[in-house]
């Protein structure tokens, strides 16, 4: 296998398969993965409903290239490096909003929505792991 250094900045998601293919290598015993995620944050009573990433794209690309060269110099055994950073809007899975004159009602209504959704709406979630396994999840009763 030739060493590879795919890097990308994009407004689209990489498919999981693309990421896995990019670093799978028969000569490599170890693959380390780091995944940054959006977190649910509350700050001064405000909820984060989305994130926006902006880049100086050409320069970011050249800095990524420098970074990869630096990594290879420090750890010459490193075979593959795959780097991907999302740009643009990044949003949570499930934004729900319910409005009412009084907060109490809308909060209770939201709670019922969540409970009922988990119990009744025919949607299924599969987790995909870095080991290339995956498993379908089940909501608790």
């Amino acid at each position, binding site marked *: 296998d030739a060493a590879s250094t795919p890097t990308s900045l994009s407004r689209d998601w990489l498919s999981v398969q693309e990421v896995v293919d990019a670093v799978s290598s028969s000569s490599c015993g170890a693959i380390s993965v780091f995944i940054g995620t959006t977190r649910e944050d509350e700050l001064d009573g405000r909820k984060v409903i989305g994130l926006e990433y902006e880049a100086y794209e050409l320069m970011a690309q050249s800095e990524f290239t420098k970074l990869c060269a630096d990594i290879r110099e420090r750890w010459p055994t490193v075979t593959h490096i795959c780097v991907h950073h999302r740009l643009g809007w990044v949003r949570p899975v499930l934004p729900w909003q319910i409005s009412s004159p009084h907060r109490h009602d809308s909060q209770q209504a939201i709670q019922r929505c969540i409970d009922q959704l*988990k119990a*009744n*709406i*025919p949607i*299924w*979630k599969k987790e995909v792991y870095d080991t290339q396994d995956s498993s*379908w*999840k089940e*909501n608790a009763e």
Partner: protein
Amino acid sequence: MCVCVLYFAKSVELTGVKEEIVAVPTPISSRDVWRLLLQRHQRLSVLQDQVVLAVRQQYVAVGDQVVTLADGDEVAVVPPLSGG
């Protein structure tokens, strides 16, 4: 009657199909519908006691309830949900 059976999530992996046309007698208990699908796809047995069906997009537990089916009716296999 020939109904259209839809599979989702884990049941797609177990049967290898997303949908298929299946001949079923009618009226029939939901338990017998499930048995009939088990005969076609033995591996579905891992979902035994967890699965429910949906007939014409309405949930029906696997049990004594009798359903009347017409040609082209949609019957879905519904593994445990995990939305949200």
